[in-house]
């Protein structure tokens, strides 16, 4: 019996069916650890004569040549990586410390996992292929995010002075994506710092917050604040910060974390709307206004309601001991649609500012 088992394990690296390492007490393996059956064979056993299934045209499929030497190198490498991964799983079973990190390391070299992550939508993920419940996919997303989008976000926040005009500084840990889902806009994710038409922003945004770290999703609550630090304060000849929208006690799942207006409507009352949405209505001839979205992890539920728009975000963060983990921003400027938005929300008419020449500067 033992000899049979040994011989199969040594041959399996080259045989038709390659399987990755797994813990011995595994009941049902996550679906996302397997590549789609269409690609699986050519991924693990090499591209066949019919050509790679990832190419659509038959002509190019037939013309395709795999680099020579890859087949042998892949077989040996796969066996090597799988053995290392099995060692890690054995380590997890023997001791319980550092479990998440070891689980990541055990799967991060699995070619099927890497294939699934590389060629599927990372943001609007299908849990069948990219399952963020699995720490390895969160790690892959983190690497992907840190390689570009995180840097882009920090660049926009710093160059547009959202830092330190709203909060002193922060370390982004959670990717936040923003979309305006209404009939007036194109269905598109907003890049941080984009100047948006007031028509687009007439209704509240939909926010996707993808938690990357290992947290208890049943209890962890999040706060979302949208603040506008560029409201003209004529009495003091300066600008002041107003809050446009605020949500607290938001619960997020790893795979279901898109806060849409519909979800807010269907919510059973657990989400607390600090203050209702005030769309951007910039005044004519004033500079562009910034709208900074801040996402916090909150240590305890917040059940207050805000009555005033004037808002001191630093104090609010300090009082509730919030921990800033994610951010996003967009900008708005006056355009022809502002008056319509004002009408829609029953707001008073806006002020038109003029440049005054030759006068002394106001003090």
């Amino acid at each position, binding site marked *: 019996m033992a000899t049979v088992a040994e011989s199969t394990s040594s041959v399996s690296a080259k045989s038709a069916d390659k399987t990755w390492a797994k813990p011995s007490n595994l009941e049902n393996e996550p679906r996302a650890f397997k590549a789609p059956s269409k690609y699986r064979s050519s991924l693990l056993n090499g591209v066949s004569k019919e050509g790679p299934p990832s190419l659509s045209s038959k002509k190019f499929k*037939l*013309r395709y040549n795999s680099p020579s030497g890859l087949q042998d*190198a892949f077989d040996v490498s796969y066996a090597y990586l799988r053995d290392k991964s099995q060692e890690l799983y054995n380590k997890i079973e023997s001791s319980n410390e550092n479990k998440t990190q070891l689980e990541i390391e055990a799967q991060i070299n699995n070619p099927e996992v890497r294939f699934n992550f590389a060629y599927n939508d990372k943001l609007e993920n299908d849990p069948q292929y990219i399952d963020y419940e699995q720490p390895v996919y969160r790690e892959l997303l983190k690497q992907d995010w840190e390689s570009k989008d995180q840097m882009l976000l920090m660049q926009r926040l710093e160059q547009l002075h959202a830092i330190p005009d709203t909060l002193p500084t922060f370390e982004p840990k959670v990717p936040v994506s923003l979309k305006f889902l209404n009939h007036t806009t194109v269905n598109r994710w907003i890049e941080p710092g984009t100047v948006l038409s007031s028509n687009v922003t007439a209704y509240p945004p939909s926010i996707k917050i993808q938690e990357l770290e290992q947290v208890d999703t049943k209890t962890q609550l999040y706060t979302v604040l949208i603040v506008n630090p560029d409201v003209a304060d004529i009495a003091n000849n300066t600008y002041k910060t107003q809050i446009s929208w605020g949500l607290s006690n938001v619960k997020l799942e790893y795979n279901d974390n898109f806060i849409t207006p519909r979800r807010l409507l269907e919510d059973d009352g657990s989400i607390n709307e600090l203050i209702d949405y005030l769309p951007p209505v910039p005044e004519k001839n004033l500079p562009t206004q910034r709208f900074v979205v801040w996402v916090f992890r909150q240590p305890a539920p917040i059940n207050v309601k805000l009555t005033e728009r004037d808002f001191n975000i630093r104090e609010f963060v300090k009082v509730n001991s919030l921990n800033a983990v994610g951010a996003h921003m967009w900008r708005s400027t006056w355009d022809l649609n502002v008056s319509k938005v004002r009408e829609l929300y029953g707001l008073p008419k806006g002020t038109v500012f003029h440049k005054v020449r030759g006068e002394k500067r106001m003090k």
Partner: protein
Amino acid sequence: MYQPLKRCLATVASPSAEGSAVNAIKAALLLTRQPIVTPDLTELEKAYFNYQEELERRLMWTFPHYYYFKKGSLSERRFIKAQKGPVSNQPNILFEKGEPDVVHNRERRLKQEVRIPKEEYEESSMSDISRPVVPNSRITDADRANDITSLERALPRTLHLLVNENNKGWKLPSFALAQGTTLHRAAESGLRELGGDDIHTWTVARSPAAVLKYEHGKLVAPDANSDKLEREFIIKSHILAGAFKPQNLEYAWLTKEEVEERVSKDYFEATEFLFSRV
């Protein structure tokens, strides 16, 4: 401890080493033979190097034979004859695997195989400079005979000299210190008294590489401290030529894995890092 050794080192007069030695010091010798050939490749290394070479050849520029062979010369004709020419593109012919793309007699979609024209060899003597090169085998007679006393065995590995005195167990050779001598001199002269003068060694340093502590003949931890300790300071040395030829002493040149098989478990644990993995 080592009565026979002491007898063979007749010049050594060490009153303190008798019976219950107080802080007795010995010099042990770690004598190694460095590898003669490069290490054997693992399966992964072999496959990876092969893959990298294939990639490099695929991405290599076309070989400019017109630079190396004069136009119209006999050698050029011989070279061109030896090449397997690619299939050139023909109009009105369907190429299923894609149309050939031949430039300078090379199929640009594939790697170029440059073949060197074969020359015919006659039975040549060893002195003939144009004889074909046939490399020597990396496996020697000593490997086949499994002769662990030979210095010509296990060429890709580092070999370490171990002795087994009176079947007391395998260990590194150690020597008592004569009055007024130093550790490295004691190790060198001790080795020659055991194994003869026909040996050329190079001692790495005068300072010891490790210390082994014994209490009543048993190995104790390296940080142990007591009055009744016997110490062995290990000096590191390489053998460069000659051989170790002792009289009536069992000895062996061993790789790290073979050392582990032979020595006691606690001895190997204490000295494991001294033996070379390659």
